[in-house]
């Protein structure tokens, strides 16, 4: 058989690796000799498994992926430039829309950056409430991710529906606290906008107490399932060296065996007061990424347990802390926290006016997505779908 004409099949565009001085990136996957034509398929932007408007331009040799080009920006809404034209407080609700599953952690990271910039102290009660909300958000995110990942593996909706049942419970809590299910806009500079009532805390306590049982049930169905293990183990391996050099953070980095968690490293907020562990994987494949998240949820439950137990009284927000019309001194600050998807950070530059002159978001989904091709080369289309699912992206944050 003849090799296909490279120009006609897209082989000519099979990847060239640039800037890979350390030799960490996956080498190009050579198509089988004499295998016939390569097939260029566009997965997305309207595709059931791209989790939003995201496109993977793949070149296939049979079912094997020879090249993969991520195409995004369909959801770009000029978030960062808008931030420079908006007051410091005015950007807070916009941050809800970045990773729209986790407005709680987005708010916190942004509030942290502004608090650093303007030197605003945070009340004790607010610090605890932030931890509670962030860990609830982590539960919500990881639960949804596990459900979606299993959906990508071909489960006919069962894990997803059970994941969404739990998600609804957490969203109900968010709604009763903030008035909105997803766009919560709860944080303010120096504290929180709303103070949780005793009833709300009791409801949260009930949810936290019951969450372990849900995880047990979920894991009993899936974690040891032969097909899940066969599908996810050894697929989409991310070596620790590549993960570190590509700036991967969050559960994806920890699944590759690097125990880096900002809650431990930075010890922001009141996290140093809590007892919790950081689970790490070994192989960095899809299964490890799934399991690390499942284990992280157990730790989140432990943190929530302690935070709800120790929650102090007092004001949630210093009424004198300036919100509207805040004018920090000229300078710059970077606030970062361990979001459910990785390091979510905001970099702000102030020139002393009411708007930042530079507003920049470090979005974990976006950075984690950069290694997609390295993870997918040589695997099949079916694998690419679950690899993408295991990275855990939200297009609101990738495209901004």
């Amino acid at each position, binding site marked *: 058989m003849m090799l296909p004409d490279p120009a006609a099949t897209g082989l000519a565009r099979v990847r060239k690796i640039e800037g890979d001085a350390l030799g960490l990136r996956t080498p190009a996957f050579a198509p089988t000799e004499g295998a016939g034509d390569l*097939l260029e398929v566009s997965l997305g932007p309207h595709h059931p498994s791209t989790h939003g408007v995201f496109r993977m331009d793949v070149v296939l040799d049979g079912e094997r992926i020879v090249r993969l080009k991520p195409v995004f920006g369909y959801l770009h809404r000029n978030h960062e430039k808008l931030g420079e034209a908006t007051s410091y407080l005015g950007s807070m609700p916009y941050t809800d829309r970045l990773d729209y599953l986790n407005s709680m952690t987005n708010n916190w990271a942004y509030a942290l950056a502004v608090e650093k910039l303007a030197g605003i102290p945070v009340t004790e009660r607010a610090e605890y409430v932030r931890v509670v909300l962030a860990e609830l958000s982590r539960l919500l995110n990881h639960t949804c991710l596990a459900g979606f990942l299993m959906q990508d593996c071909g489960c*006919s909706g069962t894990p997803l529906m059970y994941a969404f049942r739990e998600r609804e419970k957490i969203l109900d809590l968010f709604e009763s606290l903030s008035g909105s299910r997803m766009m919560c806009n709860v944080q303010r500079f120096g504290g929180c906008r709303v103070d949780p009532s005793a009833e709300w805390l009791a409801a949260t306590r009930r949810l936290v107490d019951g969450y372990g049982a849900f995880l047990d049930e979920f894991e009993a169905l899936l974690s040891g399932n032969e097909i899940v293990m066969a599908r996810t183990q050894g697929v989409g391996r991310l070596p620790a060296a590549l993960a570190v050099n590509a700036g991967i953070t969050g559960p994806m980095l920890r699944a590759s065996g690097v125990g880096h968690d900002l809650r431990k490293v930075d010890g922001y907020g009141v996290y140093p007061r809590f007892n919790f562990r950081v689970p790490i994987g070994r192989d960095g494949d899809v299964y490890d990424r799934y399991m690390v998240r499942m284990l992280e949820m157990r730790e989140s439950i432990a943190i929530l347990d302690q935070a709800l137990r120790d929650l102090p009284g007092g004001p949630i927000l210093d009424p004198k802390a300036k919100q509207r019309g805040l004018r920090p001194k000229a300078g710059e600050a970077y606030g970062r926290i361990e979001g459910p998807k990785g390091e979510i950070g905001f970099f702000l530059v102030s020139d002393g006016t009411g708007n930042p002159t530079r507003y920049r978001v470090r979005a974990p989904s976006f950075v984690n997505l950069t290694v997609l091709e390295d993870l997918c080369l040589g695997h099949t289309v079916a694998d690419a779908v679950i690899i993408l699912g295991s990275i855990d992206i939200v297009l609101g944050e990738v495209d901004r």
Partner: protein
Amino acid sequence: MILAVAPASPADAWLERAPLLLRDALTGWLPDALRPWVSALLSIAVILGVFGLLFAYMTLAERKLLGRMQNRPGPNRTGPFGLLQPFADAIKALTKEDIVPRAADRVLHFLAPVVLVALSLLGLAVIPFGRNLVAVELEAAVLYFFAAGAATELSIFMAGWASRNKYSLLAAMRALAQLISYEVPLLLSVVPVVVVAGSLSTTGIVAAQGGWAAGIWPHWHALTPWGFSAFAVFMIAALAESNRSPFDLPEAESELIAGHLTEYSGFKYALFFMAEYLGMAALSAMAVTLFLGGWQAPLGLLEFVPSYAWFGVKLLLLLLGFIWIRATFPRLRIDQLTRLSWKFLVPLALVNLLNGGFWAATADWSGPAAAVRWLVSALLVVVPFVALARSLAAGYGPRTYRYAPS
């Protein structure tokens, strides 16, 4: 044919003979030359009607059960308990615009669903749905059934190829690999049944499973070691043959949109759907016939229930099993799917051939020798199963996780 039995036998009960009496009442007044033709037409009408309705309500049952298993109610708005949902779906499918892509091969694109439904229906002709209730009495009925079933692969490839869509093409590729791989264990698992029953005719195989050992243990093939193994292989292969989860790769919605169905809409799409359910029902009906005693009652004192009711109950149980599996398992990858067939099911079925031969050769062993017979047959199932499962599961397994030192 089997009508010459003692008067008190269940075969003479009024309910048992009702379908035949009805047929005779409808065709009795016709001249003799016309009667076989009309009764054949009647059989076709009954099969189309019953299985058409079964298809309609299977879709509803599937959506309802899947819904309940997934913590949601399922369709419940159309009619009481959503019972009119299948008809609403049918009207929707009929009134939808039929879109044919401009680049598609129009003839093949049109023919694929039609051929598929026709082929899926053919197999039902040789299934004995009850005592004396078989549309066509063939000497080589089993061969005919699988020949008709094997041809359905062509139409799926036709659909994928004619659509001129890359997803459809990938799906067609997968469908061919999958269906050809699973045709082999499917057929191999049937051979021991034929050897033991000594017949290729479906009625003969059902008759061979009549009676009870010690009065309570039915002589169904699935209740013997070799038969259980063959039944398991058959059902797994049947899952794959009917493109059902966890082997629904050709229409894997999270990977290939809808696979070979991507470019189909309206009634053609409904026909594919119908063919999937008909194929599933036909293979389940064959499994009932080959392994679960066909229309035979499980216990002697339950024989007053008409034979076709037993057949229906067994068929529905198998179909519900399909739905349950769909709600539970994720999908395999194409290479794992073919590996499961060639490295696990095929060797298992081959060993089982030997097992079936052994069972047929030792049919006259009794007393303590019968126990030895069962033990040997069971070993011939368990040992290869364990050995093959070990090699299949190499490379993955549960893991333990560490925590970062703090």
